[in-house]
């Protein structure tokens, strides 16, 4: 029998070899994952494997069959048989028993304890919920890392205190979509799922980028974060970094 070398006895030995990574910072960061769908699954996987230990996830939905092509923690038996956030928390905890994952069933509009979080990862599927999280995060100076996918296209926008926010990058086409969604559902559901094209490779890429930004923030390296949006084209394989100007008309910056 051979014994493992010392460096193989530390789960995070290989992570610690990356100079800027602060494992204590990552371990202590309180993460909020908004949405337990496809992005939420991939984000959770990367958070736990990266060493984050305090994670809260919320989603109002049950697992449905069409989730199974891109949600690593959901199985056939989960379909119509459990809340996404509960299953995600339970299965992701199996990756590392030291992680504490709290599952909630709240709409983001019903979250009241924003100050309990150090970093927010948006894994949402609609503009209304994004704008809500964006406003709360910006108001409280909590870094917000928003992910989005559309078929083979994806984006990650990092909203840091005093920087441009999600709303700064939006225009009337976003509000037209928001109104359409509202009239389709008859209510401003936080987790209404439009039937967008979605597949795992784009989701996985975007989620990994989101978690890498969370690692930078938790490691005290905000200066290394994406400024301000990474736009991923899965067909060409290109990722373009786009700068966003703070919009004077954006209501989140009034009085600054």
């Amino acid at each position, binding site marked *: 029998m051979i014994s493992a070398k010392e460096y193989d006895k530390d789960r995070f030995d290989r992570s610690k070899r990356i100079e800027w990574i602060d494992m204590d910072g990552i371990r202590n960061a309180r993460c909020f994952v908004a949405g337990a769908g496809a992005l939420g699954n991939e984000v959770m996987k990367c958070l736990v494997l990266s060493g984050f230990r305090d994670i809260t996830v919320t989603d109002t939905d049950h697992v449905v069959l069409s989730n199974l092509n891109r949600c690593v923690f959901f199985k056939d038996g989960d379909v119509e048989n459990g809340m996404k956030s509960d299953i995600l928390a339970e299965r992701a905890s199996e990756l590392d028993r030291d992680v504490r994952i709290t599952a909630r069933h709240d709409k983001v509009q019903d979250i009241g304890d924003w100050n309990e979080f150090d970093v927010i990862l948006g894994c949402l599927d*609609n503009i209304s919920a994004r704008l809500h999280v964006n406003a709360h995060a910006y108001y409280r100076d909590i870094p917000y890392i928003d992910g989005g996918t559309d078929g083979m*296209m994806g984006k990650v926008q990092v909203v840091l205190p005093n920087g441009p926010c999600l709303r700064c*990058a939006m*225009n009337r*086409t976003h509000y037209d*979509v928001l109104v359409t969604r509202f009239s389709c559902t008859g209510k401003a559901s936080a987790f209404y799922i439009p039937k*967008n094209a979605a597949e795992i490779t784009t989701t996985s890429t975007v989620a990994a980028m989101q978690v890498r930004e969370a690692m930078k923030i938790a490691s005290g390296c905000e200066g290394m974060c994406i400024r301000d949006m990474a736009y991923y*084209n899965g067909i060409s394989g290109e990722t373009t*970094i786009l700068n966003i100007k703070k919009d004077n008309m954006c209501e989140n910056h009034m009085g600054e």
Partner: protein
Amino acid sequence: MGIHVSVRNATLGATLKMDIAPNETVYDIIESAAEFWKKDPKAYVLRKGKSLLTATDTMMEANIMNGDVLELLPDPEGG
């Protein structure tokens, strides 16, 4: 005298030539391009090089000049 720009559709790869008045806004370009390609009711943004343009900016504020090539991008909404 308008400003001549090309707008590339990131999804289709097609390009549209447009003549924009200096007092028109970035949103006017987004709206016209989306209408031209009869896009689904989706959210779109417009970029010039490494800058995502602010929708309320005029051509001058956005520093859009004759010959610029802009790109219309769908803003991914799914999660």
